[in-house]
C-alpha cells in the first residue's frame, strides 16, 4: 500500500473534526454565508453543508461522501465517491453522495483560491483532477478510524484492518463499526502523516461497474435541479432580451406588463459594452413578479422596439461566404513543420477538400435559471452551473463586490450542461435583478431564450490538402480554417491567439508528417460563442477523419490500413494542447484495431448499407468507432449499430464510461443529422425544438457496443471522448452505402 506519487500533503488539503458525533473530513472552514437548508433541493438532513465535507461518517453508520465538481449527467457524483469509498473501506451500496458547495478562500498570496479542490466541470477533468486528492481524503478517514480503535483497545494500529465499514483486531477478535468509532476518530490527533493509498491490484470498488447514485431520486421525481429550488420570499423574473447580436432597446412601453396582476416591476438590464467581456449576454427588460406565470405574461405584454445593432447584415449564408472568401487569401500560419509547398510540388498525388461546420446550440433540457439573494453584506446563489467559481466571480463583478468570500454558491444538479453552463450570464442577470428589487429573485429562461442566447459552438470552413509521394508515403498535410473563434469578447487577448480554441496542431496527423502546415483565418460574426462538449475536437475529428477516408478511396487503399500505417507503433509524441503532454499514436491505432475487429470492419455489406470507421484523441482519451448505416431509396438514413473501442487508461466506473460513450454517440449523431443554428438579419431564427430538431429515440442506434481497453495508463476522463469520432464514422459509412460524401454538416436532406 504505497503512495509513490503523493503530491499533496494531508496538511495542505484536509482537516477533520467531530461534528455532532460524526467524523467529518473537510478543509479549514471559511464563512460560506447563510446555511442552505432553506432550499427545496433535497439534502441528507443534518449535514453541515457549508463545511463541504468530503466524508462524513455518522454514528448511525451512514456514510456521506461529498463530490466537489457539479454533476450534469456525466456521473461524477458516483465516480468521485468511488475514489473516496475505495480508500475508506466501506460498502459502496451504503454510501450516500452530496454535492459540495463552492469553497473559496484567500490564499497565502492574498489572492482568491480554492478552499478544497478545483470545482468546475469541464474539459473531462473531474477524474484526472480528483484521482489522488479524493483517495487521500478517504485514506485519511480510514487512518483516523483505525487509530481511534487502536487507542480504544490499546493496541498498535498496524495490527488492525479496516474493511466494509468495520475495524477489526484479529488477534483479540475485537471489532468496531465505523459509526461506533466516528466520534472518537474526530478527536484523534495524527500529527503530520500522509495516508498510504491502495495499489491497483487491491482495488475493490475502483474499476467495478457501479450504478448511478441518484437513480432512485431521479425516477421518483425528487427535486434535484436548479429549476426545482425555491427560497422564502423569492420573486420570479423573466427577461425579454434583444434578439439581435449586440443590439439595444430603442424604446419600451411597460404599461401593459405592469398592469398584469402579480407583476411587481420591470427592470432594464444593460448590454455589456461592445467588445468587453460579457457578464449578461444581451440587453433586456426583466419582468419581476410574484409568480412565474405572471412574469411570463408580463414579458409577453412588453412592447419593445429593438435597434438591430452592428451585425444586422449577418446571416448563415453571408457568414459561410465570408469564410469561403477568407480561405482565398493568406491566413495566420500557426504551425509550419518542414516545407509544405515544396512537398506538394514534389508530390506524386495531391488531394483537397473543404468541410463546413454550422453553429450549433448546447440546448440543455433544463433551461437556464438561477436564484440570487443579494443582501446588505452577503450574496447567496443557487444555480445549475458547471463553474460555481465563475458564478461567484461574475456576480462580484456586476455588483462591484470586493469580498468574494461574502458570495456563497450552492451548485445544484444540472439538467444537462454540455459546456453551456460554463458561462454564468444567467446568474449575473439574477444578481442584478435581486439587487434592484431588494429581494431574492429566481430568473427563469424559456426555450426560445436558451436557443437565441446561447454561446454557440463555432462555425467555420475547413480546407484540407495532402500530398503523397510515389511510394505512397504521406509527405505533406495542411489544414486551413476560417471560423469565428470560441474566444468571444476577449479584449485582452490578441486576435493572433484566437486559433488556439479552434485548432489543435498536435492532433493526428500532426508530428507524423514531415511537411505540415496549419493556418487560421479569424472570421467576424456577431454570434456569441463558447465551449461545446469536446469543443474543437468535434470539427477537427470530422474533417481529418473524413478527409483520410476520401484519400483512401481515391488511392484505392483501405481507410483503416491508411490510418494504421500513418499512426505506426506505440511511442510518445508531444501534445501541447489540453489532454497532453503526450499523444501515443499506438494507443489510437489500438482502439482502431479493436473497434474494427469487434465491429466487423471490412466485411461485405448488403446493398444500401455501409460501414464506416473513425478515431480521435480527445483530452487524453482514445476512442474509435465503427458505424453501420442503411440508406433507403428515398435517402432515409438509419444508423443500425455503433461499435466503439475506448482507451482512457485506468477506468474508475466502467458503467459510467459506457454511459458516456453511448451518450456521446447519440449527441454526435443528433448534431450531425439535423442541428444547425440559423442566422438571418443578425439574429438567431431557431425558437424551439421544431426548428432545432434534437434526435428522438426513433433515430437512435438500437445497438451500441462499448469495448474498454484494460491497461496501466493513468486515468483520463470520458465526458467528451465518445463524441468526436461519431460524425466522421457516420459520414464514412454513408459514403460506403451511397457513394455520397458528406462535407457539409448537418446532413439534413443531402441524401434525398
Amino acid at each position, binding site marked *: 500500500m504505497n503512495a509513490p506519487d503523493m503530491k499533496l500533503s494531508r496538511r495542505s488539503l484536509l482537516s477533520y473534526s467531530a461534528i455532532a458525533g460524526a467524523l467529518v473530513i473537510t478543509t479549514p472552514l471559511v464563512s460560506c454565508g447563510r446555511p442552505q437548508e432553506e432550499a*427545496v433541493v433535497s439534502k441528507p438532513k443534518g449535514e453541515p453543508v457549508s463545511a463541504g465535507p468530503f466524508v462524513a461518517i455518522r454514528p448511525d453508520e451512514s456514510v456521506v461522501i461529498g463530490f466537489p465538481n457539479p*454533476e*450534469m*449527467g*456525466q*456521473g461524477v457524483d458516483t465516480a468521485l465517491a468511488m475514489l473516496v469509498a475505495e480508500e475508506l473501506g466501506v460498502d459502496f451500496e451504503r454510501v450516500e453522495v452530496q454535492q459540495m458547495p463552492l469553497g473559496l478562500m484567500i490564499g497565502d498570496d492574498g489572492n482568491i483560491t480554492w478552499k478544497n479542490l478545483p470545482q468546475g466541470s469541464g474539459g473531462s477533468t473531474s477524474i484526472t483532477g480528483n484521482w489522488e486528492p479524493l483517495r487521500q481524503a478517504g485514506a485519511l478517514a480510514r487512518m483516523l478510524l483505525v487509530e481511534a480503535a487502536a487507542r480504544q483497545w490499546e493496541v498498535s494500529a498496524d495490527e488492525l484492518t479496516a474493511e466494509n465499514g468495520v475495524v477489526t483486531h484479529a488477534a483479540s477478535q475485537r471489532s468496531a463499526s465505523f459509526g461506533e468509532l466516528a466520534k472518537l476518530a474526530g478527536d484523534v490527533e495524527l500529527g503530520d502523516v500522509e495516508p498510504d493509498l491502495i495499489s491497483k491490484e487491491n482495488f475493490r470498488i475502483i474499476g467495478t461497474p457501479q*450504478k*448511478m447514485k*441518484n*437513480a*432512485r431520486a*431521479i*425516477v*421518483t*421525481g*425528487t*427535486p434535484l*435541479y436548479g*429549476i*426545482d429550488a*425555491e427560497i422564502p420570499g423569492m420573486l420570479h423574473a423573466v427577461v425579454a432580451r434583444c434578439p439581435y447580436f449586440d443590439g439595444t432597446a430603442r424604446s419600451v412601453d411597460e404599461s401593459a406588463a405592469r398592469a398584469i396582476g402579480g407583476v411587481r416591476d420591470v427592470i432594464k438590464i444593460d448590454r455589456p459594452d461592445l467588445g468587453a467581456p460579457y457578464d449578461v449576454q444581451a440587453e433586456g427588460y426583466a419582468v419581476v413578479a410574484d*409568480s*412565474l*406565470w405572471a412574469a411570463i*405574461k408580463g414579458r409577453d405584454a412588453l412592447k419593445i422596439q429593438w435597434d438591430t445593432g452592428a451585425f444586422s447584415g449577418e446571416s448563415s449564408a453571408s457568414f459561410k461566404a465570408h469564410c469561403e472568401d477568407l480561405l482565398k487569401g493568406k491566413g495566420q500560419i500557426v504551425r509550419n513543420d518542414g516545407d509544405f509547398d515544396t512537398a506538394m510540388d514534389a508530390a506524386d498525388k495531391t488531394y483537397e477538400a473543404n468541410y463546413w461546420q454550422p453553429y450549433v446550440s448546447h*440546448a*440543455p*433540457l*433544463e*433551461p437556464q435559471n438561477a436564484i440570487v439573494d443579494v443582501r446588505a453584506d452577503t450574496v447567496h446563489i443557487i444555480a445549475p452551473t458547471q463553474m460555481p467559481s465563475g458564478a461567484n466571480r461574475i456576480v462580484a463583478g456586476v455588483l462591484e463586490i470586493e469580498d468574494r468570500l461574502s458570495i456563497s454558491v450552492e451548485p445544484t*444538479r444540472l*439538467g*444537462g*450542461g*454540455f459546456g453551456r453552463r460554463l458561462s454564468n450570464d444567467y446568474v449575473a442577470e439574477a444578481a442584478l435583478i435581486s439587487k434592484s428589487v431588494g429581494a431574492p429573485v429566481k430568473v427563469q429562461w424559456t*426555450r426560445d431564450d436558451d436557443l437565441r442566447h446561447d454561446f454557440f459552438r463555432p462555425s467555420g470552413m475547413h480546407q484540407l490538402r495532402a500530398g503523397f509521394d510515389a511510394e505512397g508515403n504521406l509527405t505533406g498535410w495542411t489544414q486551413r480554417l476560417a471560423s469565428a473563434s470560441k474566444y468571444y469578447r476577449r479584449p485582452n487577448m490578441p486576435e493572433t491567439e484566437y486559433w488556439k480554441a479552434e485548432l489543435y496542431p498536435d492532433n493526428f496527423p500532426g508530428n507524423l508528417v514531415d511537411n505540415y502546415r496549419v493556418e487560421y483565418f479569424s472570421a467576424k460574426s456577431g454570434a456569441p460563442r463558447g465551449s461545446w462538449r469536446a469543443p474543437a475536437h468535434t470539427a477537427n475529428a470530422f474533417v481529418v477523419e473524413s478527409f483520410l477516408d476520401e484519400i483512401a478511396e481515391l488511392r484505392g487503399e483501405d481507410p483503416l490500413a491508411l490510418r494504421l500505417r500513418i499512426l505506426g507503433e506505440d511511442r510518445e509524441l508531444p501534445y501541447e494542447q489540453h489532454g497532453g503532454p503526450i499523444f501515443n499514436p499506438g494507443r489510437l491505432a489500438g482502439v482502431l484495431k479493436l473497434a474494427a475487429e469487434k465491429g466487423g470492419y471490412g466485411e461485405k455489406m448488403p446493398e444500401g448499407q455501409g460501414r464506416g470507421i473513425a478515431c480521435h484523441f480527445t483530452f487524453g482519451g482514445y476512442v474509435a468507432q465503427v458505424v453501420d448505416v442503411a440508406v433507403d431509396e428515398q435517402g432515409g438514413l438509419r444508423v443500425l449499430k455503433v461499435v466503439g473501442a475506448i482507451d482512457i487508461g485506468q477506468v474508475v466506473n466502467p*458503467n459510467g464510461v459506457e*454511459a*458516456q460513450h*453511448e*451518450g*456521446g*454517440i*447519440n*449527441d454526435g*449523431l*443528433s448534431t450531425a443529422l439535423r442541428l444547425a443554428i440559423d442566422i438571418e438579419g443578425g439574429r438567431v431564427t431557431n425558437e*424551439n*425544438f*421544431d426548428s432545432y430538431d*434534437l*434526435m*428522438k*429515440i*426513433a433515430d*437512435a*442506434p*438500437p*445497438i*451500441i457496443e462499448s469495448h474498454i481497453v484494460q491497461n496501466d495508463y493513468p486515468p483520463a476522463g470520458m465526458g467528451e471522448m465518445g463524441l468526436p469520432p461519431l460524425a466522421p464514422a457516420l459520414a464514412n459509412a454513408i459514403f460506403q452505402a451511397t457513394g455520397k460524401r458528406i462535407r457539409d454538416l448537418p446532413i439534413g436532406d443531402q441524401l434525398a
Partner: protein
Amino acid sequence: MQITVNGETVEYDGDADMPLLWYLREDAKLKGTKFGCGAGLCGACTVHIDGKATRSCVTPMSVAEGTEIKTIEALAEGDKLHPVQQAWIEEDVAQCGYCQAGQIMAVVDLLERIPNPTDEEIDANLTNICRCGTYYRLRKAVHRAAELSDTGWFS
C-alpha cells in the same frame, strides 16, 4: 374550478390560461414534472390526465378542469416502485436525469396501451427528447419494464 392531482381534489381560482405545468410545479410544488420547451415538443412535462400521457406545458388549466392528473411523484406505491421506475434503475438509464420523469410517464402509458412493444412500436410512440442521449438504455428499460409488468411484478 376543481382538478384532482394524485388523488387529491383541489380548487383552483387562478388564470384559466395558465399551463397545468406551472400549476403542478409552482402552486402544488410537485417539482418532478419538468419544463423543457413550453411547446409540447420535448415531453419533459409529461403527466397523466385521466390516464393518458399528456404534455402539461401546453395544457391550460381550463382543459385540465375536472380531470384526474397523475404525476411522477404518485407513480410508486409507497416504497414500492412502479415497474417502469424499477426498470429505469435496473438499466441505469439516467444521465442528467432531467427528462426521465417525462419519459417514464410516457412509457407507463405506452405499456398500458401496448404491453409488449416492439422496437418499431417504441420508435413510433415515444417522442420525448433526451438531450443526454440515453436512448440505448431507455429502449432496453422499456423492454425490461414490459417484462416486469408481464410477470406480475407490480401485483
